[in-house]
């Protein structure tokens, strides 16, 4: 049985976990690869026009797999931690894809919801496993080894590998002791999709800039920063985004922040205000908000990035000169 995993949204977070779980159970896994122009335009035509860019991209990936697989694997991730939620779009994702077009393959959509406690989730995973094999030990083994894969993957991300490199465990690191250090913060799928971000990460490296992503900022640090907010943020992945921005601007971990936002993203639209206000309160570390959608032109995008990097570099040199004189 060929199971397709669309390479969008939570793919960047969980692909190694999902893949190894399904493979251990005997399925063949097929992913849709990097986003391309045709994937994007297919997604844009099929998807609801008012949706956020990442969901449109996801549609494109799912449609690209449509005729090649026996089923699509799109888990419904409701909550990955007590007292938090993912975004509504992720709750509705399996249903939206199922109805995206006539003749979609069946969707495998286990519900993961940590409000329900450990057992419910254990049962959901077990049920998923038992649709592939009758052997409970095999399911358990698959669970354990895929979790190990997941840990290893996240460790590699934390060391500064990009997702595809982190899956192989080898590649050029984003941070390499260069003088200028810029954090690129946003949802995984906004930061790591090299097509929709117009290869932002590679470009920055090409400009001799060290990049820090939210994976590279330890979770404890993010959480510690979040604790000082008057109102708890209840979106799971948004917590990482805001926690990282706060860590960067308050602890001056970097020279500047590029905040990647996709147009029409619900949570980002308002948490951007929180980040901006906290940044001002913490001494105005330079931050640029990049809002991208399917119409974002490459020219303007790159010009803005270059201008931002130049500005930071001048500022940095100035600082270095001053400290040397002192």
């Amino acid at each position: 049985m060929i199971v397709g995993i669309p390479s969008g949204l939570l793919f960047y977070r969980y692909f190694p976990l999902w893949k190894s779980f399904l493979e251990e159970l005997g399925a063949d896994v097929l992913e849709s690869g990097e986003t391309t122009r045709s994937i994007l335009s297919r997604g844009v035509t099929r998807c609801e026009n008012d949706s956020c860019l990442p969901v449109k991209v996801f549609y494109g990936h799912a449609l690209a797999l449509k005729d090649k697989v026996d089923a699509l694997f799109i888990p419904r991730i409701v909550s990955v931690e007590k007292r938090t939620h993912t975004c509504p779009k992720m709750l509705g994702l399996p249903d939206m894809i199922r109805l995206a077009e006539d003749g979609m393959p069946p969707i495998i959509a286990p519900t993961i919801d940590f409000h329900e406690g450990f057992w419910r989730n254990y049962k959901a995973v077990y049920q998923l496993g038992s649709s592939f094999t009758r052997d409970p030990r095999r399911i358990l083994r698959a669970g354990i080894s895929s979790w190990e894969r997941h840990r290893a993957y996240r460790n590699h991300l934390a060391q500064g590998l990009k997702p595809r490199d982190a899956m192989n465990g080898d590649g050029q690191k984003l941070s390499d002791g260069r003088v200028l250090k810029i954090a690129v913060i946003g949802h995984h799928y906004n930061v790591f999709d090299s097509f929709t971000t117009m290869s932002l990460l590679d470009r920055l490296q090409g400009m001799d800039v060290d990049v820090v992503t939210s994976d590279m900022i330890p979770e404890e640090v993010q959480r510690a920063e979040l604790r000082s907010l008057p109102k708890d943020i209840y979106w799971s992945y948004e917590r990482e985004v805001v926690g990282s921005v706060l860590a960067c601007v308050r602890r001056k971990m970097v020279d500047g922040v590029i905040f990647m936002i996709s147009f029409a993203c619900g949570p980002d639209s308002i948490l951007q205000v929180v980040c901006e206000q906290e940044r001002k309160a913490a001494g105005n570390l330079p931050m640029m908000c990049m809002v991208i959608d399917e119409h974002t032109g490459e020219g303007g995008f790159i010009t803005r990035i270059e201008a931002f990097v130049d500005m930071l570099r001048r500022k940095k040199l100035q600082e270095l000169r001053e400290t040397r004189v002192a």
Partner: protein
Amino acid sequence: MKIAWPHMGSIEVAMTTILDELGLDYVLPPPSSNRTMQLGVKAGPEFACFPLKTTLGNYIEALEAGADTLVMIAGRGPCRFGFYAEMHRRILSELGYEFRMVTLEFHLNDLPLMARNIRYLKQGKPLRAVYQALKFGLAKAVAVDHIERQALHQRYLDLERGTTSAALRKAYRKMRDVSDYAGLPGAQRECLEMLAAVPKREVHDPVKIGIVGEFYMVLEPFFNLDIEEQLGNMGAYVERNIWLTDWIRPTGNNPIGGHHDRESEAAASPYLTHSVGGEGIHTIGYTVIYAREGFDGVVHVLPFTCMPETIAKAILPVVSRDVGIPVISLVIDEQSGKAGVETRLEAFVDLARSRRRHASRQT
């Protein structure tokens, strides 16, 4: 302490009653207007959902009118509504206003905070009095919902356009002035009689339209561009799925809307199998229910970028095809104009009407 809250449908009747009972001071912001919207749009974040901006506008006008304590319900997602109060607090403070934001968080984990905030709001009044006031206020709100529903059902029969709406406005005022619990049933009866006395025409087999969508947009006539009234004036019998007092009922039972939450979730289940926050699943569910009940079309109102309703909007075309009635999604934001919406609704009602004629000819 001068309390204020944003406008939303008939919420004013309940709020003023509760606060009057307790003898607490409040400020009513001026009725929502284009100025309200512009203030909110200017101060609010660009892609925030529209209700966040309009309520922000109400707050600004309330502060201008002397309010110093802003009340808002809050929560924990998954949609943005749970974060409104915090956004309002941050944005208004940055603009330099001085006030206190009091949130009422309906979430088990936040009960202590809720208790603290209620204690702050009640200003030393005994809990018993608070209970009495809430009971009175809510009972009044239920009565108002009944009256509002009657108006909704009969507007298309108006002999002279606007008479039902005028009677409804009078009824709001009358209900607001009821000062004791015992007087409620009588007042409700009088208001219903007032509506019954509106001169009506004979209409056979009217076209039937259901309204579904995002909570605030359905309830707030100024910002939904009076779609209820517009549809009624076009001669449609109208029903809607969102009612203030149904919403605050924790049991999922909806005596005004008429269907239990479970019913609408079951109706939605071929299309959406999990709640997506807000009213998303009920938008789908009620579309199916209205089709079953012989309605000829469903109008879906949602603010631009609303997350749950955008999901519903993505799914509705499939639902519409399956159940065989047309559905129109009206996405509303600061650029929406009444005239544009009117044209679209007119075309839609025509479509629904011809469908009805066609269907009745076939049977």
